[in-house]
């Protein structure tokens, strides 16, 4: 899953303080405590509009988080406890696998209604999932077309064809036939696209503006790039929904203000700032100041993300493992983290899988000091014959990244590697570096799991076979094509036992680190700020977003 990074930010800072209004701080209530009150409007301030909220097209954390208020997915995460718990959402339970996890059956709850009062049926879900396949409905995740039988040739429902591998034996039963075993398919179905869309209300490419609700809120008005207003869906019932509440009267999402201005407006906690929250992460210099401000502590949501910020070393171009190991030891993660916003940004990483992800294993193969081990790195370079190397490093052309690149350049200069920095257009960054035609020696990357399972991280980042199958969207930036790794990936995917699978992924993580294919930099946190009158925000560690499913506005 991608996190929409900050939009092209030109503005410095604007502080929004309404004249005469004084900040009424001092609210000591902490996240989640206190009893929810009904009513009020929650304002969401984001720098830019969601890429999509059409559930089959949504593939960003902000969009997903908003979508969860409007649409219900087959399964979902209950995050009120210490760890996210997988529960049935539209489905009564978390699904039943059969035939070695190649067939999955879901039974839908009775009494779930659309916003016009009609029932949500299995056919609606089937139609919704079929939409994934239409080229008009682009932008969403690839899993449906990868896994459903016949998916490679199906082109979506708009021309009247159906996908036979999704069966609806009755109004409330869905059966998915997969072309390979997928042990965690019921976690895949927590993604927004695995939801119902009523054929009669589908508007195709423009469905973003007309998403039909079966969740607690429905679209009242949506002006692209400006404002999205959600109001209560009166046909939604708490009794059929194990995840969501319906506390506030309205969500009012406003877009287009500069992120710094948003941060300042919420920080000042005046006027609407008191009931406002931002979904786009606070970054760079603002993060430092806000994270270090004790008065903001109660309103500052620092959410660990199931992802990794890393620098891939192209194993096809930097063939000498000693050089790669030297790079692992030479990179000074303290200056790198400084570039991304300091300690609030996240902990230093030593592995690909972050602590919150199933399969995470605690190990460190390289320097124990985050600032690096120069002596060891130099020794490794000496073993490699002290080659005079020049390497390219691709980053996005935003200040944070440029500073990161500088930090790497400085560190590697100390072991005799000259780094040429390639700042690439940030909007096209991944479409450039993911194309196998554009290979850099060092490539910055980040990845957030689509669901908190190593299966949506390691295979995607290190399966060497995708260089051939996905030449234009090869996520294997390390160009690692290690037969051991590939075999391990296949083995882990087939393992239906969760503990065994986790162990397999842990070993895979360690193998990748042994190959010195990536320099893991930070286990990211995403930080957002809310106003003092907001309650019921829970940490969505799946999306790394402040979850709004229980949100309320204090009166």
């Amino acid at each position, binding site marked *: 899953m991608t996190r929409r990074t900050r*939009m*092209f930010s*030109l*503005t*410095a*800072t*604007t*502080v*929004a*303080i*309404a*004249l005469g209004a004084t900040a009424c701080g001092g609210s000591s209530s902490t996240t989640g405590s206190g009893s929810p009150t009904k009513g009020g409007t929650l304002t969401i301030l984001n720098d830019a*509009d969601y*890429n999509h909220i059409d559930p089959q097209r949504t*593939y960003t954390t902000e969009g997903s988080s908003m979508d969860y208020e409007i649409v219900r997915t087959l399964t979902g995460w209950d995050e009120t406890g210490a760890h996210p718990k997988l529960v049935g959402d539209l489905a009564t339970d978390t699904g039943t696998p059969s035939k070695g996890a190649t067939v999955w059956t879901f039974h839908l709850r009775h009494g779930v209604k659309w916003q016009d009062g009609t029932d949500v049926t299995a056919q609606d879900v089937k139609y919704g999932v079929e939409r994934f396949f*239409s*080229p008009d409905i*682009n*932008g*969403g*995740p*690839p899993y449906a*077309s990868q896994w459903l039988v016949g998916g490679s040739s199906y082109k979506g*429902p*708009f*021309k*009247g064809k159906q996908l036979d591998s999704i069966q609806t034996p009755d109004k409330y039963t869905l059966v998915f036939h997969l072309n390979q075993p997928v042990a965690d398919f019921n976690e895949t179905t927590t993604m927004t696209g695995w939801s119902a869309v009523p*054929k009669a209300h*589908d*508007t*195709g*490419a*423009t*469905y*973003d503006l007309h998403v039909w609700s079966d969740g607690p809120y429905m679209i009242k008005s949506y002006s*692209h*790039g*400006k404002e999205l207003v959600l109001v209560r869906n009166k046909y939604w019932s708490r009794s059929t929904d194990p995840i969501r509440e319906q506390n506030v009267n309205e969500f009012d999402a406003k877009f*287009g*203000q*500069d992120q710094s*201005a948003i941060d*300042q*407006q919420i920080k000042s906690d005046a006027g609407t700032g008191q009931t406002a929250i931002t979904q786009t992460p606070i970054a760079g210099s603002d993060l430092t100041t806000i994270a270090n401000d004790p008065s903001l502590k109660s309103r500052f949501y620092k959410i660990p993300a199931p992802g990794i910020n890393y620098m891939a070393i192209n194993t096809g171009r930097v063939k000498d493992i000693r050089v790669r190991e030297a790079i692992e030891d030479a990179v000074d993660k303290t200056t790198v983290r400084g570039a991304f916003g300091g300690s609030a940004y996240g902990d230093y990483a030593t592995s690909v899988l972050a602590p919150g992800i199933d399969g995470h294993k605690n190990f460190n193969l390289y320097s124990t000091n985050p600032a690096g081990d120069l002596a060891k790195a130099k020794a490794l370079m000496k073993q490699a014959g002290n080659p005079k190397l020049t390497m390219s490093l691709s980053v996005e052309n935003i200040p944070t990244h440029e500073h990161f690149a500088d930090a790497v350049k400085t560190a590697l200069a100390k072991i005799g590697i000259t780094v040429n920095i390639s700042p690439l*257009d*940030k*909007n*096209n960054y*991944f*479409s*450039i570096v*993911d*194309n196998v035609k554009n290979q850099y020696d060092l490539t910055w990357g980040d990845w957030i799991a689509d669901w908190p399972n190593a299966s949506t991280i390691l295979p*995607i980042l290190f399966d060497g076979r995708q260089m051939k*199958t*996905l*030449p*234009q*969207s090869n*996520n294997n930036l390390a160009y690692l094509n290690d037969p051991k790794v590939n075999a391990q990936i296949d083995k882990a995917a087939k393992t239906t036992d969760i503990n065994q699978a986790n162990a397999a992924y842990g070993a895979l993580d360690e193998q990748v680190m042994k190959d010195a294919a990536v320099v893991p930099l930070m286990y990211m946190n995403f930080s957002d700020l809310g106003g003092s009158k907001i309650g019921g925000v829970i940490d969505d560690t799946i999306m790394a977003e402040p979850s709004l499913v229980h949100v309320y506005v204090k009166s």
Partner: protein
Amino acid sequence: MLRYLVRRLLAAAMILLVITAITFVIFYALPSNPALLACGKTCSPSRLTEIRHSLGLDQSFLTQFWEFFKGLFAGRDYGDQSVRVHCGAPCLGLSFQTDTPVLTTLLGDFPADLSLGLGAAVVFLVLGVGLGMLAAVRRGRAADKAAVGLALVGVSVQIYFIGLLLLFLFVDKWQILPASGYTPFTQDPSAWFQGLLLPWATLVIVYLAMYTRLTRSSMLEVFAEDYMRTARAKGLPAGKVVLKHGLRAAITPIITIFGMDVGSLIGGSAVITESVFGINGIGKLAVDSVQNSDLPVILGTTLFAATFVVLANVVVDVVYGLVDPRVRLA
């Protein structure tokens, strides 16, 4: 007059057509791939081909251009039977990014640029012409030197620097004004005014300089004209000589530049001002669309902006013809 207007408008349409064609060509040469951007993070080659087809990018250059051109007059339909989207004429296409008609987006952003551009233009025209006249009348004296000096500083100052400085002083430090931005006038006139005050001020500082200089030099040129001496020789008071006889003649070149400036300002040229003050106008839309390789929006914003510039040209010529009796529009 009517024939002149028709001819000028036809020429304007030709220029716009050429600009559209050039934009198309440039987009073709753009290194990025909008289909890949639309496709998402993990995109198989076959899916990519389908999306290219869905966006119409697999068609030849001429076909795409013709489709666009046709859409301008006849509208276009998008999508398959059950979910057809109609984009009425003049159709500038659907955004690759948001699938909304470009024209709708443009018209939605237009009020911000209109407010920003017109508001600033009125002030810098009035102030600039006033200061310029003062400088011309007091040529060589302190007032002139001050006006010319200020004008030069204004011309040399960078919008983003002065804009940020104003923000820092008025919003952050003294907290006299709320954060700037655009609120529709219909929604809250007071917020509209307060939010645009600093952007206006910034544009005024930068443009004022130009108008002061322009008026001053234009005035000085007119002062050297024989008819100004005639006016004085008639016994007209100095004020009337300057305001009636001088300004009337000196204003024509200023009208030309003013027309062009207003045209380009409301057409979205105030990109930097928009970005500094967080105003979601057409300039920002254009910058974003270039970065997202959103061809229909790039085309739309370019055409929109160019239309204003070209139309401003025609309007300026017509006004010129009305102001200067020597010019005959034929």
